[in-house]
């Protein structure tokens, strides 16, 4: 039996290690309760001064017991030992302390703590300037808590989207009865609680409700709730965020109590809940008292001491001093007395406490020191004594002799702070209530209400009554029940409580600035003197002080320290706490695993991959792929050991000399129908479609209203009032939304309808001088002669037995047939075309060769040769702009703005390197004078650049200022390696300038 384990508490033992040393705990323990049972005092070191720290609390408020769980890929940093359920074989270690947490050399720094007041780093490390990065290196090394894993997470995570009528947050007394009242109306109820068991504060209580001991009462209530089909119980589930429109997020820890990594299934999952109504029953946090050296291990919250005794059967010490401002903590003296260990004294700051529980303690012969403060704890790694002294009635001064109390455990209570975090997430502004000495939730901004301790109601009867009403009300507002209560009253045994004292800083015999540190925020070593210093330096806003001192920035998010800090600040500013205000709580309520927030959408599910019907064929041919939007497109088809360049040379020559085949299925396709289709399309493109006849195609450019090129493609007239618009691969969704926008919001009178058919069709482009011969072998119902089926025509027909639509459009400048068939037949058609082309050595080519071929022809790629600042004129494409269109098409007016008509705009040109084997890097900047000094006057840049095997030299497209009037001039591209490549400005059409080859 561990030395602090009470004999009455038994259970199966669990082995675990802490900082490499083996211990035993009991089933039901948290790591914290097990460490306390084993008498482990120092569990961590503080952030700034490396002071030894022990377990202070018993839940989410814990500031000190921050641990690293496990090792390797599944290690988890920064868990609070109070929230880690013990399992067999658990391994944990402290996150700070070198060489060990018991002897930390950084502790020496603590001795120089006075040199490190808040904000000291703003005032120093500035000189000499170049040393900052060195200073910072050591600052960084000293900072941080646990260590992140260095390997990928072995676990998986998930999400659930849920809707409910009533979400109850917290399964303490108020939450449980709220859920029951809501449940019986038939409302869909979710009740979530962060702990492993429902019951909240009652789990550590010996009170009775309706004549039953609290834990029994909980068990039957939970069983009752579980029997409802309309109730979902979520233990180990933290509601960590409350967002707009009653959207709440719950982190459910499914396996963390079993092992470091999930034995099976997902480790954690997030419930994304849209709740009609919410009941917040999140309880309250006990407030520590701020006295000198209140951070020594052995100082704890009074409720935590009671919890360890009553719930876990652990007495974390021997000689207890209780220090309180209220009646509530007297219970801790009673609980401790039950263990048979000594209660040295109850120190009560109130001058005249009276009441049943005070009498009950006195009746046991326990000394009660009224009108006293515990002004300082003594000890290094464990409390050895408590210094107590009489203080004045307002609690601002020590007024009598100091007395030493021999003690190893101090349980302190400064009252309770409602857990208003979730209400605060909604933007509700907390309201200071001097009666409860705490902030209550502000007026609701969402469909929520608070009940019980989180609303400032601290007596059990009150919590139950409020919970029941809140549950019934929430159900009613969600459309269930009449708001009446099924269980209107509870019979509860509890002591009536007398008023507490508001005491936020316990006076010392020395002034705050000179007294030993009185800690407010333990994790970040923020002390009362630090807050006063911030005020002395002129920081007056609570946000400034918070930021200057780091108050509340720890991983406990100020759950313990914030109220004391605000109050000390208010006092220093000589104003009320209400005037001083509080900072705003933000999600996460408690830290939330990134992996859980990411959920399933990581690795190969990070973003959907889109494949064409021929994808597997491409894979089988060993294609390399390029990501284009979500699509996987074949980039090139290397043959045994071929480099990209060699493959592209081969593929390109095949197209120019015989025939190639391209999977063009990814191009966006929008089916457009309606009596006003032609008019609408003509408004969207720069050119006109009013006279485009069925069977004909036309290339168009689409502008944004600012006149800049947005997308391009071919549009075909399929029949009267029926068109098919091709878009770029990446632009498809955007173009569809763009069309819908204009039709729906600006011109609803135009009857025209759009349907995306991108995925309906497979497109195989057969291109090259032998293209007709290949098509002729698989298609015999279309007259393929140039006279019958000319360039920019399309025809319906049958290809390899499949109904097909063939377009004679070309992105290579060669004779081309784009064969479109329903996507299901894609692979069939593809293989049929490959077979038909075998005798011509038909060559599949990828996007890289496609880019080279189109660049040889000077065809632009929107998004590569344009960048959102290019007009058609800039691209030397004035021919595509209908000057005489009746309607002012989208973007037209912008083409007449002073900047768009300006001379010297960047214009698309070709660049031919003086040395043909030099290939300009894409993205190279163009200058006119290579010898100028930096900063150079840049005149444009290379947008596309390749080696052209067909031409035997490199080619490039570039945009150059005034380029269209600079043909023949030589420009330079200064490269990072120091070279400067000279190139001549030439026409952007390098190959077949007359465009004859596509017309054959």
């Amino acid at each position, binding site marked *: 039996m561990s030395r602090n384990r009470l004999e009455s508490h038994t259970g199966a033992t669990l082995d675990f290690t802490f900082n490499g040393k083996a211990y035993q705990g009991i089933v039901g323990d948290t790591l914290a309760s097990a460490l306390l049972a084993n008498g482990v005092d120092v569990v961590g070191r503080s952030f700034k001064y490396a002071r030894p720290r022990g377990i202070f609390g018993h839940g989410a408020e814990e500031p000190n017991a921050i641990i690293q769980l496990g090792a390797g890929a599944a290690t988890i940093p920064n868990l609070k030992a109070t929230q880690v359920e013990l399992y067999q074989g658990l391994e944990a270690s402290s996150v700070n302390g070198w060489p060990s947490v018991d002897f930390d050399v950084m502790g020496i720094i603590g001795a120089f703590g006075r040199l490190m007041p808040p904000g000291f780093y703003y005032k120093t490390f500035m000189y000499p300037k170049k040393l900052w990065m060195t200073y910072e290196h050591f600052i960084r090394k000293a900072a941080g808590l646990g260590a992140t894993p260095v390997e990928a997470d072995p676990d998986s995570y998930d999400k659930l989207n849920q809707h409910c009528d009533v979400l109850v947050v917290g399964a303490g007394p108020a939450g449980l009865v709220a859920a029951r009242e809501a449940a019986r109306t038939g409302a869909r109820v979710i009740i979530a609680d962060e702990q492993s068991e429902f019951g909240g504060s009652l789990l550590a209580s010996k009170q009775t409700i309706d004549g039953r001991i609290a834990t029994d009462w909980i068990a039957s209530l939970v069983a009752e709730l579980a029997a409802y089909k309309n109730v979902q119980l979520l233990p180990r589930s933290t509601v960590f965020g409350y967002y*707009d429109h009653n959207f709440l997020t719950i982190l459910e820890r499914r396996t963390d109590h079993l092992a470091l990594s999930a034995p099976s299934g997902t480790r954690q999952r997030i419930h994304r809940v849209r709740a009609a109504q919410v009941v917040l029953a999140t309880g309250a946090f006990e407030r520590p008292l701020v006295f000198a050296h209140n951070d020594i291990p052995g100082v704890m919250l009074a409720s935590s001491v009671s919890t360890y005794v009553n719930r876990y059967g652990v007495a974390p010490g021997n000689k207890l001093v209780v220090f309180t401002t209220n009646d509530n903590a007297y219970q801790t003296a009673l609980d401790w007395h039950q263990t048979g260990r000594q209660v040295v004294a109850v120190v009560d700051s109130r001058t005249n406490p009276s009441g049943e529980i005070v009498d009950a303690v006195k009746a046991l012969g326990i000394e009660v020191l009224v009108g006293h403060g515990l002004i300082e704890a003594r000890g290094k790694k464990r409390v050895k004594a408590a210094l107590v002294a009489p203080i004045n009635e307002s609690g601002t001064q020590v007024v009598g002799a100091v007395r030493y109390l021999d003690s190893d455990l101090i349980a302190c209570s400064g009252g309770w702070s409602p857990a208003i975090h979730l209400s605060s997430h909604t933007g509700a502004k907390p309201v200071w209530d001097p009666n409860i000495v705490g902030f209550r939730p502000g007026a609701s901004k969402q469909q929520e209400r608070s009940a019980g301790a989180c609303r400032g109601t601290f007596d059990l009867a009150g919590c139950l009554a409020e919970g029941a009403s809140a549950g019934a009300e929430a159900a009613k507002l969600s459309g269930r029940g009449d708001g009446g209560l099924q269980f209107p009253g509870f019979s509860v045994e509890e002591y009536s409580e007398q008023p507490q004292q508001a005491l936020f800083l316990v006076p010392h015999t020395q002034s705050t600035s000179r007294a030993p540190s009185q800690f407010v925020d333990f994790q970040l070593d923020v002390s009362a003197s630090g807050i006063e210093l911030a005020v002395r330096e002129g920081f007056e806003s609570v946000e400034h002080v918070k930021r200057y001192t780091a108050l509340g920035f720890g991983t406990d998010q100020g759950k313990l320290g914030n109220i004391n800090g605000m109050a000390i600040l208010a006092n220093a500013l000589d104003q009320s706490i209400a005037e001083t205000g509080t900072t705003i709580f933000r999600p996460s309520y408690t830290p939330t695993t990134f992996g859980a927030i990411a959920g399933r959408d990581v690795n190969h599910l990070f973003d959907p991959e889109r494949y064409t019907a021929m994808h597997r064929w491409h894979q089988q041919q060993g294609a390399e792929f390029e990501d284009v939007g979500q699509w996987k497109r074949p980039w090139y088809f290397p043959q045994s050991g071929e480099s990209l360049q060699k493959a592209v040379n081969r593929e390109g020559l095949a197209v120019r000399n015989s025939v190639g085949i391209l999977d063009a299925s990814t191009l966006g396709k929008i089916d457009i129908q309606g009596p006003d289709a032609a008019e609408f399309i003509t408004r969207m493109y720069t050119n006109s479609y009013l006279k485009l006849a069925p069977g004909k195609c036309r290339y168009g450019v689409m502008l944004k209203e600012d006149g800049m090129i947005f997308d391009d493609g071919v549009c075909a007239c399929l029949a009267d009032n029926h068109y098919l618009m091709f878009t770029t691969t990446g632009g498809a969704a955007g173009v569809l939304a763009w069309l819908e926008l204009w039709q729906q919001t600006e011109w609803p009178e135009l009857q025209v309808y759009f349907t995306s058919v991108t995925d309906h069709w497979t497109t195989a482009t057969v291109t090259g001088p032998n293209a007709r011969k290949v098509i002729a072998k698989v298609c015999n119902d279309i007259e393929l002669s140039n006279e019958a089926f000319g360039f920019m025509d399309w025809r319906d027909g049958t290809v390899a037995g499949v109904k097909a639509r063939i377009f004679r459009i070309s992105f290579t400048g060669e004779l081309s047939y784009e064969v479109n068939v329903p996507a299901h037949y894609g692979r069939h058609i593809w293989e049929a075309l490959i077979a038909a082309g075998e005798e011509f050595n038909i060559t599949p080519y990828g996007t890289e060769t496609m880019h080279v071929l189109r660049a040889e022809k000077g065809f632009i790629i929107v998004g590569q040769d344009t960048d959102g600042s290019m007009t058609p004129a800039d691209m030397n494409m004035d021919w595509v702009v209908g000057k005489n269109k009746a309607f*002012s098409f989208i973007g037209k007016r912008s083409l007449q703005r002073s900047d768009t008509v300006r001379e010297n705009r960047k214009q698309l040109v070709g660049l031919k390197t003086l040395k043909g084997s030099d290939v300009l890097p894409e993205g190279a900047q163009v200058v006119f004078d290579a010898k100028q000094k930096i900063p150079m006057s840049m005149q444009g840049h290379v947008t596309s650049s390749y080696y052209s095997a067909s031409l035997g030299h490199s080619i490039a497209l570039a945009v150059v200022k005034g380029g269209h009037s600079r043909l023949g001039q030589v420009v330079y591209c200064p490269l990072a390696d120091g070279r400067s490549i000279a190139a001549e400005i030439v026409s952007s059409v390098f190959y077949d300038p007359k465009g004859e080859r596509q017309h054959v």
Partner: protein
Amino acid sequence: MLLIHCPHCREHREEEEFSYGGEAHIVRPLEPEALSDEEWGDYLFFRTNSRGIHHEMWYHAVGCRRYFNATRNTVTYEILETYKTGTQPTITGASA
């Protein structure tokens, strides 16, 4: 995450189904060529950017694919109404 009522689907749906379309009720000038650069620039880029009541377009992108308007408070994010394109809001900055 907003919960948005689509007036076409007549259902509340999650924000993830929609995309934002910017300020509503900006009418494209009937004769763009008649406008000065200033007037045209104003139409293109200048917005009321209201703090408070704001009329804005939403596109039910992965739903019915219809644009509609919403009156939303840009401070509280409360959606006060949604209404079909071509109709007028019942709640305006003046009335709220």
